[in-house]
């Protein structure tokens, strides 16, 4: 935060206009927007306040940026949580996100109309686009001069330099006749003065985006929305774990109980916004037995098919250096030979060594000298990965387990299994990316079957019987309860979710101001 700004504080007995639970992509833009329009706002964040220069590229220590309250992972594709998934701390998951910032494809808003599968969003790209452009403009996004799949689009900052993996993916695309470009990245490539924050430096190509940006180049909530919120009078409370939602006799929310330093506190509020993500938001509603007349809280859990393919080159690649995932192709958003609905984005992948080694270790059973040889190939390795549509399935959901956490609250159980569409997409991508690497001479090509991101569980839609919130994010059951995070996405879409989460957050803030 800007050290010259003195943060306003509220008494627990004050009835603030809004309490926002969560300070990441879902909570921060909305908090800033409400405050800018004169509303009194308190943001409760379970994690601490970090300082950017205190971040460390050491992957084990950098786990402090991840949500480490234990989750139980089940299904035939149990998902890995922790690393590069859910965040904690002022700024939320944007502290560790990869800053890869594609826009949602206009077709992904209408997947059911297009294919008869999946679910449509209750509006199209035209509705969200003004908010997308506001987000990109305010936080700072770099990209190419001309974007091949949308020539009208403009980015304010030129792209960072292409690292080894980005250059290799360009070669692979050229070999197979695919278009490619520098992808949109939420980082700045020249120094600026960020309103209400201060100096943000140009990206130094350090490659440790997932371990926290040390110089403010990466566009997070901590260096954009949250300082703005504070400047307009919002209070940020780190270290506050919200667990109980209090209501009056009519069922409306009156306040939130949270624990800070082992002590219970209560903040009264006129409106509550949940922005805790697609696991913690439904967990909070389920433990409190709220907003679930549809029976859909926790249902429709989705991820992204995030298959990776790695190869070794007879060159010094050094995959830790440079922005990790610069090259993109959107040519697979509706591939002609697809035996699945929806599509996927492909990005180049550099990676830090322990994360890379984890993927290698969990996707193979090599042992002995062969395992050592594989790890010793780190500096020769380059990767590509996808993010692709994942259809909602009844067996994929978040429920409460029988185990309690340190707060005495049930740990969440997340069931996740691929269906035929996800497997078909995985196989398509594994084949394509392997052929790209083969075409340019990569050796020891390795396919990693994995899913990423967390989406769904409190779906928005027009029908109160099958959705948790209306198309603006407001609970059908409790009129002063709103949800602003990726749990309201009706479908996964292919794009990384951060841009859509922030855009929806601004849109929900507008709706709250009009309500």
């Amino acid at each position: 935060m800007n050290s010259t700004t003195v943060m306003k504080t509220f008494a627990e007995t004050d009835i603030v206009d809004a309490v926002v639970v969560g300070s990441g992509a879902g909570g921060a833009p909305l908090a800033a927007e409400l405050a800018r329009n004169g509303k009194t706002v308190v943001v409760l964040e379970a994690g601490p306040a970090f300082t950017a220069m205190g971040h460390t590229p050491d992957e084990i220590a950098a786990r402090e940026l991840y949500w480490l309250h234990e989750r139980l992972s089940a299904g035939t594709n149990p998902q890995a949580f922790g690393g590069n998934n859910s965040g904690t701390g002022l700024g939320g998951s944007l502290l560790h996100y990869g800053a890869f910032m594609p826009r949602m494809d206009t077709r992904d808003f209408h997947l059911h109309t297009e294919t008869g599968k999946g679910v449509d969003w209750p509006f199209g790209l035209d509705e969200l686009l003004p908010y997308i452009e506001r987000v990109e403009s305010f936080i700072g996004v770099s990209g190419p001069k001309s974007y091949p799949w949308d020539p009208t689009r403009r980015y304010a900052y030129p792209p960072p330099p292409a690292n080894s993996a980005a250059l290799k993916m360009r070669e692979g695309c050229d070999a197979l006749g695919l278009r490619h470009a520098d992808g949109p990245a939420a980082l700045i490539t020249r120094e600026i003065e960020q309103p209400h924050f201060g100096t943000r430096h140009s990206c130094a190509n350090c490659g440790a985006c997932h371990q926290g940006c040390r110089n403010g180049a990466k566009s997070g909530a901590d260096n954009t929305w949250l300082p703005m919120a504070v400047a307009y009078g919002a209070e940020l409370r780190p270290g506050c774990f919200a667990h109980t939602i209090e209501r009056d006799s009519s069922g409306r929310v009156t306040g939130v109980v949270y624990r800070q330093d082992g002590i219970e506190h209560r903040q009264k509020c006129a409106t509550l916004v949940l922005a805790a993500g697609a696991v913690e938001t439904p967990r909070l509603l389920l433990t409190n037995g709220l907003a679930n007349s549809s029976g859909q809280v926790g249902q429709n859990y989705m991820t992204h098919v995030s298959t990776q393919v790695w190869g070794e080159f007879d060159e010094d690649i050094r995959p830790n250096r440079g922005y990790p995932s610069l090259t993109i192709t959107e040519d697979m958003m509706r591939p002609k030979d697809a035996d699945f609905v929806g599509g996927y984005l492909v990005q180049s992948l550099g990676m830090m060594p322990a994360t890379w080694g984890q993927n290698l270790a969990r996707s193979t059973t090599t042992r002995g000298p062969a395992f050592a040889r594989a790890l010793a190939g780190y500096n020769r390795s380059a990767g590509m990965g996808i993010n692709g549509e994942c259809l909602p399935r009844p067996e994929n959901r978040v429920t409460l387990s029988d185990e309690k956490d340190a707060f005495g609250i049930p740990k969440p159980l997340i069931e996740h299994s691929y269906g035929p569409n996800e497997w078909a997409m995985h196989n398509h991508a594994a084949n394509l990316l392997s052929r790209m690497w083969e075409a340019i001479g990569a050796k020891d090509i390795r396919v990693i079957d994995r899913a990423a991101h967390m989406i769904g569980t409190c779906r928005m839609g027009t029908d109160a019987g099958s959705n948790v919130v209306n198309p603006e994010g407001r609970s059908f059951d409790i009129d002063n309860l709103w949800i602003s995070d990726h749990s309201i996405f009706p479908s996964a879409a292919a794009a990384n979710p951060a841009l859509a989460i922030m855009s929806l957050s601004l849109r929900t803030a507008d709706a709250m101001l009009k309500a």
Partner: protein
Amino acid sequence: MSPPPDRPEILDSDHLSARTRDILTSRLSAPETQPCTLSLQAYAVLDALLPVLLPLEEILPPGTDINMTARIDAALSGPRDGWRFADLPPDAEAWEAALLTLDDVAAEQHGIRFIHLAPELRGSLLDAMMTGQLGLDRDGRLSIPQMARWAGDLRGEVVDCVMSDPRVQQALGISSSLTGGDTVFQGFAEVGPNSREDFEPKATAALAQMADSRE
């Protein structure tokens, strides 16, 4: 115990922050109390399986001991990674049960404890575990599918321990810790292939030298 290893040169780089230097330096010594999570029996099984799973003499200079057994045992009592497979018990309990399962199966199949098996036989048991062919359906032990799940956790923990060690980073020529110092945040000026900067380590391990030797 092997003699203390040379201090890796990367620890003296001005491209390293003080915090990162402290974190990496702390890994040069073994935890004081061993074991602190596992029973003596389970600890001994872990100690005997690690060289068969990942022989570090392939990477590190002779005589270098990164205290992997002790560090993993200590890590099991520290903050974990935020999730676990729903069909496994909590981490410390799962590790104890898995290691004792290996010991019991060694005794049943070969008549001697895991730690006394020849390396080839230890390796065969690990292969059977990783490919879903080893487990025990009894209290305090893990079943075949549980052992296959745990094998992924084991491999992941080992890789965390190895790739985050400054001696390994030095030996493999990895510059990932050298993102920038405290007064100057240097980052990397060169990010393309075959463009190692002077401050970045050059691999010393034979396995990792192919690219460097081309410079």
